[in-house]
């Protein structure tokens, strides 16, 4: 089978295989941060950057360190540690050199450490046997896909807050989950259009 074109993979990760809407990963920050468009955008941008970098980084760690030494079964703990260290490093750098960005991202940046979409992307990268360039494309694509989903939902939620009269029990996460389900249903129609593995 021909290797998948990284560009194809990039678009597939955004639309047909959106990590949030088809794999339902990263739902926790998705639910809690989608109340307002501004914070959704900040969280989304941080996810794009960290997901792209850690997927590529973990690809290197996996194929250059773990595989040659026969330690693939340690990939969970190693990936998690790499992600945590990377996020920490990024936070320090952003705080020191881009204070404006640091303040606008606020607590979203460190929260990414425990965003399961990030870890998920690294695991998919291994399961689907992506090479470095593919991993990078997949990482960036998944990040943008996640951002797209959270921006879409936060726009809908903002509109709902202004206009809709929801029953008390449906407010907040409940209605968000229902809308997410509907959105996911729409995205489901794309599934299988593009081969990702």
């Amino acid at each position, binding site marked *: 089978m021909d290797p998948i074109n990284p560009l194809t993979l990039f678009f597939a990760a955004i639309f047909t295989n959106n990590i949030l809407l088809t794999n339902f990963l990263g739902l926790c920050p998705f639910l809690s941060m989608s109340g307002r468009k501004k914070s959704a955008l900040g969280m989304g941008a941080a996810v794009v950057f960290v997901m792209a970098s850690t997927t590529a980084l973990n690809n290197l*760690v996996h194929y250059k*360190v773990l595989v040659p*030494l*026969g*330690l693939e079964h*340690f990939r969970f*703990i*190693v990936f998690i*540690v*790499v992600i945590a*260290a990377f996020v*920490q*490093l990024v936070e*320090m*750098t952003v*705080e*020191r*050199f881009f*204070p404006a960005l640091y*303040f606008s991202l*606020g*607590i979203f940046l460190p929260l990414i450490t425990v965003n399961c979409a990030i870890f998920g992307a690294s695991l998919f990268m291994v399961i689907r046997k992506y090479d470095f360039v593919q991993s990078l494309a997949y990482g960036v694509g998944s990040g943008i896909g996640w951002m797209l989903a959270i921006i879409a939902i936060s726009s809908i939620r903002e509109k709902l807050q202004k206009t809709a009269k929801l029953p008390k029990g449906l407010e907040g996460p409940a209605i968000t989950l229902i809308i997410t389900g509907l959105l996911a249903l729409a995205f489901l129609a794309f599934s299988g259009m593009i081969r990702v593995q």
Partner: protein
Amino acid sequence: MTQFIVSILIISGIGAVLALLLEFADRFIADYGECQIMINREKELKVQGGSPLLFSLQDEGIFIPSACGGKGTCAYCKVKVLEGGGPVLPTETPYLSADEQEDNVRLSCQVKVRNDLAIEIPEDLFLIKEFKVRVERLEDLTPYIKGITLAIVEPEEGITFKPGQYIQLEIPKYKLSSAPEFRAFSMASFPEEHQKIELYVGLVEKGIVSTYIHNYLKKRDELVMRGPFGDFYYQESDRGILMIATGTGLAPIMSILRHMHREQIQQKITLFFGTRSEDDMYCVEELKSLEKELPRFTYVPTLSRVSDDSPWQGERGRVTDLIEEHIPEAADLDVYICGSPEMVDSCLEVLEKKGISEDNIYFDKFS
């Protein structure tokens, strides 16, 4: 077997490399160099940037109150950050009202010193310091109360406080304690004396600190104390003053009286001082001579446990009885109450019944 060791080594190695990387990053990236903190537009501090403002100030000997130790949960450490604080953080917003945010109030434990700052803090906070003190006098005032005088060794300029405030005295670890312990004691000395303070320490059954002071402390011992603290202090006014004290509660009252004597403040003052028996009375001579030197000062001692055949000439009963008896309804008075919580509470009750404005009642509960 080798596989096990190799795995452990490799995984540890990866962890070590990452830790090393972060350590370097912390050293080089998070190096904010020296930052200036301008306090109240007059005092300038140079600190190493990178730590929260609360701790930077603490290192410089400025103690902002904090109960949670910088975790951002008690909201005691509010200061005004005029310049360089950056936007209010999500960790602060729950503790800051809209007015406070408008006013540049921030939680100093959350604001990191990244660049030069200009801040504003209450002048009083400058006065809170850590002092090294030496025991100069230890005297049994009553069988259960010791008067101690502490001379300040460091810092040289001594202590500045308002009459009625307290300090925290720390005693070292000894037989009955597992770590150094500190307790609050009101100062009895007048504030014009900056180099020495006097405390009255009552012996508390099984009290770690009071037992140490009564049985282990010696002259010339050195101790550490912090202060001054507290909002129970003399308030200037031209109303008459009623002072109520029991036991060691006399300490802040003595400080206020000694201050008024030195400054020749001529207000009408009545002091109700209650103890159980005559043996528990102290400072009697001084109070009597103050009565002569402050013409409008009246000292009224009362004993709560005295037999009918005792030669005691003064009042009998509790201080609350004296209020009932001597204080007219709705009198326009500043009231200072100091002593056990039970005594303070029952006094407050009686005063409320008398219709005395609670705005002018100040109290300090010794527990």
